[in-house]
């Protein structure tokens, strides 16, 4: 059967349309390919490291979690960085001005990589972040390869400074801090024999910290009577709690993130547990108070920061925090973010006064800044700190706090109950 062009048959029309569609696909695909090629060509030279260092203010890039499940920490970090900028402005007579470019590193790896790439391309001299250790394992190698110093304000997992010689942190490893709160619980009740442990088995921070708690318990002759594995996104813990309470624990150890931890504590108390609760670094934020409310009262937590430390810099930090947030006490994560900015700021000022930032490229300035950063000693809100040649923070003082809630049950504070100076850790 034939058909004239004027009266095509259904089959003929289909063939023509199929032909047009194929041509359309080819055209659109070529267009996309050309677009990708053009963008790739424009984006090929992303790092301005070879350009001379500009005379104006220096930029620090901060990639922290403002969205995603780590955003509770990111909000505290954002405050810490803003306060540090104000502190530096008050302190900066004659020094080199430093400003912060803040980007959302979200709570996943690709976003942290994108934020680091963006900030590096904008020509920052150093980076602060990312919020989570898992993100650090993805984003830090990029900064390392491009020779950009990184100061991690909240990565506590093992192996972060070992990513490379441009990577450092001001957040002490969990292995140093976590056992102190167990000691405090045992001091209060030496008869403790039965311990229940809860942790989120799909969370990097929890799984790393729970191993440290396990070691600390074993070193004190305690074997957990039950280990309950929860999930990062869980909010209902009735089943694991019921299972654990059947073993009549005298001490509960929790290593979970803030929101889950707040709910877990509340449900533990509601289901009748009256013993001591020791929690990990994930609950080191006042943002848990509205979640577990009056049930937060009495939980023990080891900290790398105490608001009660009476030093000039901590008093300055507290004053700035009160001005910004009213009559509240700053949390550890805010103090660590402040410290991350402070150590970079002080290293930049030292380098500037030595003339180390004159007549160099941005790449050379980054290398010099890293050397200066690691060589320095700093009086920070965390106490006196320094760095090992690898970039690991060397902090001398750690604290154990107890949460004391107001009678209203809506707000509370971390009250200092113990302090420990670790020998061998150089300030």
């Amino acid at each position, binding site marked *: 059967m034939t058909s004239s062009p004027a009266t095509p048959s259904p089959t003929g029309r289909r063939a023509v349309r199929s032909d*047009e569609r194929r041509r359309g696909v080819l055209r659109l695909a070529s267009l996309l390919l050309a677009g990708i090629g053009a963008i790739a060509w424009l984006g090929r030279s*992303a790092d301005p490291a070879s350009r001379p260092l500009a005379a104006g203010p220096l930029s620090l890039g901060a990639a922290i979690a403002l969205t995603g499940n780590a955003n509770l920490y990111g909000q505290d970090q954002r405050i810490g960085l803003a306060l540090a900028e104000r502190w530096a402005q008050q302190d900066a007579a004659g020094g080199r001005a430093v400003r912060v470019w803040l980007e959302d590193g979200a709570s996943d*790896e690709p976003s942290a990589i994108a934020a680091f790439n963006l900030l590096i391309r904008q020509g920052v001299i150093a980076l602060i972040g990312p919020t989570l250790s898992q993100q650090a*394992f993805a984003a830090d190698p990029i900064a390392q390869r491009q020779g950009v110093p990184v100061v991690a304000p909240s990565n506590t997992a093992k192996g972060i400074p070992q990513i490379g010689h441009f990577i450092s942190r001001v957040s002490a490893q969990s292995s140093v801090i976590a056992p102190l709160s167990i000691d405090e619980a045992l001091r209060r009740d030496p008869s403790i024999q039965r311990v229940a442990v809860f942790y989120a088995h799909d969370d990097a921070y929890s799984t790393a910290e729970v191993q440290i708690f396990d070691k600390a318990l074993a070193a004190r002759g305690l074997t957990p009577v039950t280990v309950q594995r929860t999930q990062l996104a869980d909010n209902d813990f009735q089943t694991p709690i019921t299972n654990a309470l059947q073993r009549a624990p005298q001490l509960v150890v929790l290593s979970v993130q803030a929101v889950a931890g707040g709910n877990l504590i509340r449900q533990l108390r509601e289901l009748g547990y009256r013993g001591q609760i020791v929690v990990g670094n994930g609950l080191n934020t006042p943002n848990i108070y509205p979640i577990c409310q009056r049930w937060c009262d009495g939980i023990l937590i080891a900290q790398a920061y105490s608001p009660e430390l009476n030093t000039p810099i901590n008093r300055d930090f507290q004053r700035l925090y009160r001005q910004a947030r009213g009559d509240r006490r700053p949390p550890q994560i805010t103090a660590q973010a402040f410290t991350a900015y402070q150590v970079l700021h002080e290293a930049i000022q030292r380098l500037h006064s030595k003339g180390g930032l004159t007549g160099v490229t941005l790449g050379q300035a980054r290398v010099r800044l890293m050397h200066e950063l690691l060589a320095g000693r700093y009086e920070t809100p965390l106490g006196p700190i320094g760095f090992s040649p690898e970039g690991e923070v060397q902090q001398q003082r750690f604290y154990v706090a107890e949460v004391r809630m107001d009678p209203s049950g809506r707000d509370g504070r971390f009250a200092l109950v113990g302090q420990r100076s670790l020998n061998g850790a150089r300030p």
Partner: protein
Amino acid sequence: MIDNGLLVQMLLGALLGLSVYLPLAAGQLSLATPAFYAVGGTLAALLSTRWSVLGATAAGGFPVLSLLLELVLGGALAGTLALLVGRLVLRLRGIYLAIATIALVEIVRVAILNLPFTGGAIGIFSIPQPFTDASGYLLTALILLVLTGWICQRLDTMPLGRAMAAIRDDELAAGCMGIDTTRVKLTAFVLSAVVAGTSGALAAHFLNTWNARQGSFDVSITTLAFVILGGSRAWLGPVVGGLLLTALPELLRPVGDVRLVLFGLVIVLGPVLAPRGLVSPELLERLGRWGSPTREQKP
């Protein structure tokens, strides 16, 4: 401004979009893409960090040939897994198949989380680098995308592609016409797995680290959004959807804290304003006609 690192993520997004599109072209709503992506990524992460024969150097370098081998092995392992699971899950249709594939994603995620050699929740890090910057990844991802696109385009004129389209339109009628529907659906499922597994192997190196979170249910939904926004009737739809939705959160950074609100609005408004996706068959026909003499529409 899009840098080459973001462009790599966009191309990986487009590849994952195609991986969801392939079973959909045979009428099967499979959300298993992240499971195969995770399998490919975990295999590449394990091989490059544990198997010294592949030639990872102490300085973190990695031969490109070894990467290519990993891409092939990642695709092959994901394809084999799809072949084994596909026979079971493809008995289900529609929403039941979607639920079964979500279960597969969960099983793979929990397995990776609990296997003794995959690093638990922290995963595997310090994955060696075959390229010194993102351009190498860009070229590799682009070649993979062009290759997958070419196969999808060829499918249109091949008996397999026509059989897939017939099953999508009416599975019962296709079966009555003598098409072995099980075999065709399984082939599409395996092809989808190969694309996802290969993409995962490349992504593991690009991300420097690999953990169970990379293949979660969230990724199922994101990749499905690529297809819904881009369009499921032409292979260029998921490609455009993947490129666009991966880039958008980054391009919206200048608007600050509301960027994810705007991103959500695009996902909501996209299907409302373009129910058949941004790249519909009609658009492609108009594009094909453009510049050529107008044909008569009606006798």
